[in-house]
């Protein structure tokens, strides 16, 4: 903590004090500031002017820099957020390095907040002095330049991932689309019809899937999982695990003979376990890529000794029990994460039967029951006995908006899909009774409220305002305990089936990956935006972009918009010749570094690592965002932030506090 020497510097510093009309000059005696600073060590020029940001003001700066051969300038004016760029540009025109410009904020943080002229002037002088001390010690810096690999990785093959991949590919860049399941399509391909237009989800989804698979610049990696990502924006190295499908996709001609002979029957994930599939299966008829997959976990043993029936019947010799897991490595410049969501578990809702009642199902299960390609061929039948339910109760906010035990947020789409569910039910079972329990009906969206009103008015769905407390079962009938808060009556309704509008939650399967990628998430595990308003599809980690329900609950158009926005951001990134990165990073001084590695643990970006041979820390400056946490932690002063070194801070403090 030695007091910094007033550097014997040959540097010529110039000071320009702005009046900003009366905004500054009305409170701060700008003439006095300029006058006092004239004699301050290091200051070669000091002047004041009515509007520094005006054209003549800037010209004055440019001319003075040239004329007085200034090495560094301080503009005492408004907040740097307003005109730092303006003045940097002016200085650049005069041939001065932009990192030699200091803005001393004497407006927002002085003249506008104080009334005592004397005190405000003194404070302005202190502020300016501090910046002079900093300027004396500023280095000229150049932005760090890096090349860009113009190739994108999209993680997740649902509607968001597919849309993002298509857009990036259409911009002219190559895309790797990684999906962990055997087919792309995500949750949207499971839906029946979509609100509020009631167009068939599969009909609008499958063309997109086919387009993605045929696009010359999209490489589809289904049944693959991203293992790890290293590197930095523009230059990522990705390790991707290829899971063995045991069926050669290029040979499989979908004849289906293998499926016929396979003896292993397991619940079908695509139909939410409401029907069965074989261990060798096609996830759904329109699956992309169109190939069978042999699910090793349920196969009798991947060996002709154990079974081997599927291999025997395959004419194309597509089945290969010896297929192995493989890691592939790819270079990409930017990454879009579109890993989707899951539904909250039934198990967590003990009062609604937990998993005990077969006929209490979630919204996605009901989508399958409604779907023409679903387990019941589109006829609404309940899971327990296949009867057509004469009464269905829909429970909104199942798990949502519950700060106490479940999830505090609103899942956003349930109001609309419940309206859709109850409407479709009434269309298929006109004499059936549909009852919806709701707390609020939220229909903010194009044609949403009209759709909801239609459900109530035309389809005569009974909306009851109240939250269901409990569901019990008597014989084959479910009894729903609810309340109508509008009439103040406790109500009990018999139902043949109950559909819970289950909360949307983070996708469980990708949480490990996100941790490995150091992608920050919010407290609910959804991806965190760089800025919730102004950078909604970017991650704080440079080069990562976000789309879809992985960010939080949303409907299809919103997910698609985000996907296109993320793709546009990738386009931005790839359109640059080279990337530049702020040079105000924190390098490690080899001479001073003791190799204690404390700074490595401080860095949230993994920019610092140990050079084991030399026993010192090395810094990947491209990864460093310049927060300075490491600099504050470094016990030996080896980590010094460029243009905000400890010496600069000490000098500023001395100048700002001294008389």
């Amino acid at each position, binding site marked *: 903590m030695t007091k910094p020497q007033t550097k014997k510097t040959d540097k010529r510093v110039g000071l320009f004090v702005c009046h900003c009309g009366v905004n500054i000059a009305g409170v701060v005696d700008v003439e006095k500031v300029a006058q006092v600073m004239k004699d301050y060590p290091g200051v070669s020029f000091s002047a004041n002017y009515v509007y520094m940001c005006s054209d003549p003001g800037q010209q004055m700066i440019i001319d003075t820099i040239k004329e007085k051969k200034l090495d560094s300038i301080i503009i005492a004016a408004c907040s740097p957020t307003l005109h730092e760029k303006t003045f940097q540009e002016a200085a650049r025109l005069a041939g001065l390095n932009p990192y030699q410009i200091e803005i001393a904020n004497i407006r927002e943080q002085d003249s506008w907040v104080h009334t005592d002229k004397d005190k405000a002037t003194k404070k302005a002088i202190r502020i300016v002095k501090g910046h002079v001390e900093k300027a004396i010690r500023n280095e000229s810096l150049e932005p760090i330049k890096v090349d860009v690999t113009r190739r994108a990785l999209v993680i997740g093959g649902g509607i968001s991932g597919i849309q993002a991949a298509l857009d990036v590919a259409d911009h002219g860049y190559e895309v790797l689309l990684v999906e962990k399941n055997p087919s792309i399509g995500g949750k949207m391909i499971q839906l029946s019809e979509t609100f509020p237009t009631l167009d068939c989800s599969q009909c609008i989804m499958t063309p997109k899937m086919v387009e993605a698979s045929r696009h010359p610049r999209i490489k589809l990696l289904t049944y693959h999982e991203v293992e790890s990502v290293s590197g930095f924006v523009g230059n990522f190295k990705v390790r991707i695990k290829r899971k063995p499908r045991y069926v050669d996709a290029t040979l499989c001609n979908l004849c289906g003979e293998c499926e016929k002979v396979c003896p292993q029957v397991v619940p079908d994930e695509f139909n939410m376990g409401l029907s069965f599939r074989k261990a060798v299966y096609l996830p759904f008829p329109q699956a992309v890529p169109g190939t069978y997959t042999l699910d090793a976990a349920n196969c009798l043993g991947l060996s002709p000794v154990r079974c081997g029936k599927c291999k025997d019947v395959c004419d194309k010799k597509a089945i290969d029990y010896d297929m192995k897991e493989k890691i592939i490595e790819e270079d990409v410049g930017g990454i879009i994460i579109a890993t989707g969501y899951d539904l909250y578990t039934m198990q967590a809702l*003990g009062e609604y039967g937990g998993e005990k009642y077969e006929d209490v199902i979630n919204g996605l299960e009901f989508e399958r029951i409604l779907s023409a390609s679903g387990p019941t061929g589109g006829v609404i039948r309940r899971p327990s006995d296949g009867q057509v339910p004469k009464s269905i109760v829909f429970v909104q906010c199942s798990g949502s908006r519950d700060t106490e035990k479940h999830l505090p947020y609103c899942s956003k789409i349930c109001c609309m899909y419940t309206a859709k569910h109850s409407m479709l039910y009434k269309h298929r079972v006109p004499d059936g009774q549909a009852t919806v329990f709701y707390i609020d009906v939220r229909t903010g969206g194009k044609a949403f409220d009209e759709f909801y009103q239609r459900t109530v008015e035309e389809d005569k769905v009974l909306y009851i305002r109240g939250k269901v407390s409990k569901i*019990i079962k008597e014989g084959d009938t479910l009894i729903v305990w609810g309340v109508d808060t509008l009439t103040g009556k406790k109500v009990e309704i018999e139902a043949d089936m109950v559909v819970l509008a289950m909360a949307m939650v983070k996708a469980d399967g990708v949480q490990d990956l996100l941790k490995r990628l150091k992608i920050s998430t919010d407290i609910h595990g959804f991806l965190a935006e760089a800025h919730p308003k102004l950078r909604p599809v970017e991650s704080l980690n440079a080069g990562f972009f976000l789309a879809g329900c992985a960010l939080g609950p949303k409907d299809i158009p919103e997910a698609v918009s985000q996907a296109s926005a993320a793709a546009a951001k990738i386009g931005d990134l790839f359109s640059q010749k080279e990337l530049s990165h702020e040079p105000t990073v924190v390098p490690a001084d080899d001479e001073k570094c003791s190799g204690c590695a404390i700074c490595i643990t401080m860095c949230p970006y993994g920019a610092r690592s140990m050079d084991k041979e030399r026993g010192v820390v090395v810094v990947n400056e491209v990864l460093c965002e310049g927060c300075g946490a490491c600099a504050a932690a470094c016990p030996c002063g080896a980590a010094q932030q460029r243009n905000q070194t400890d010496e600069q801070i000490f000098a500023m403090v001395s100048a700002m506090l001294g008389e």
Partner: protein
Amino acid sequence: MKIHYYPGCTLKEKTTALDLSTREAMLRLDVELVEPEGWSCCGAEYPLTEEKIIGLAAPARVMRQVRDEGGDVLITTCSFCYAVLKRTNYALKNDALKHKRINAFLKDDIKINPLTKEKTTGFEDYNGEVKVLHLLEYLRDYVGPPKIKSRLKRPFPGLKIAPYYGCRLLRPQKELGLDEPDNPHIFEEFLELMGCTAVDYPFKQECCGSYLSVSLPEAATEASYRILRAARMNGAQAVAVTCPLCFYNMDKRQDAIRESFLDFGGLPVLFFTQILAWALGVDKSALGLAEHAVPAAHLFEDKPRAEVTL
């Protein structure tokens, strides 16, 4: 082994069956139950406003006595006592103000030795040191299923029993922490351990009407009826309870239930400790079966009869 046991008022006078069967059963698991000296009524209801905290004094005093006798665990079987003791303990641990006020009040408590008439006062603060356990918890976590299993003499093969938790064992979960309020298991696990089949039915955690059985008997009658009916519909041969008041509402009031609800066929109500005691080989005479309004003795046969017509 000696363990502190808080029977509570009702067990001493009215439902001796619960007390007796508990003691006998525990002896067969090598546990002798000792009562803290000079215990008083816990107050039955935990005070629910921030100003009526004097109700915490009695239970705190009981637990302090247990601590001063060197005990670290206090067992109860009555759900009311369990809730009051455990919640008081929670408050003394987590609410600094209540801790201060109750201890200030109890400090000058006077204890008189019955023999020497010597007076003691100036007690040390009670900070929630004693662990309050329901017997079900104690059996599961301290005695353990393997030991209990090894001591079983007369398990109940296939006897279908509906466990009834009621309110006081489960809620509020944050303070009691015995089990999930809407998805509890501990009672079922106990019954399965006894060789019974635990009947799943949706009313196991619904209220029996509690003290309203005095001020508004019709309400308690209906509440109890709904529980018993659901248990019967799901095939139960009896309902097992832990609480004397639940027992009163469901057993003693069954005549009233049958009068109001003609479809109801009756169902015996047992204390869980009667099941435990019998399974461990305790003599039938020590089960207190004479206290039951609805005959239950037929369930405690070496070969229990499947059904009894009432």
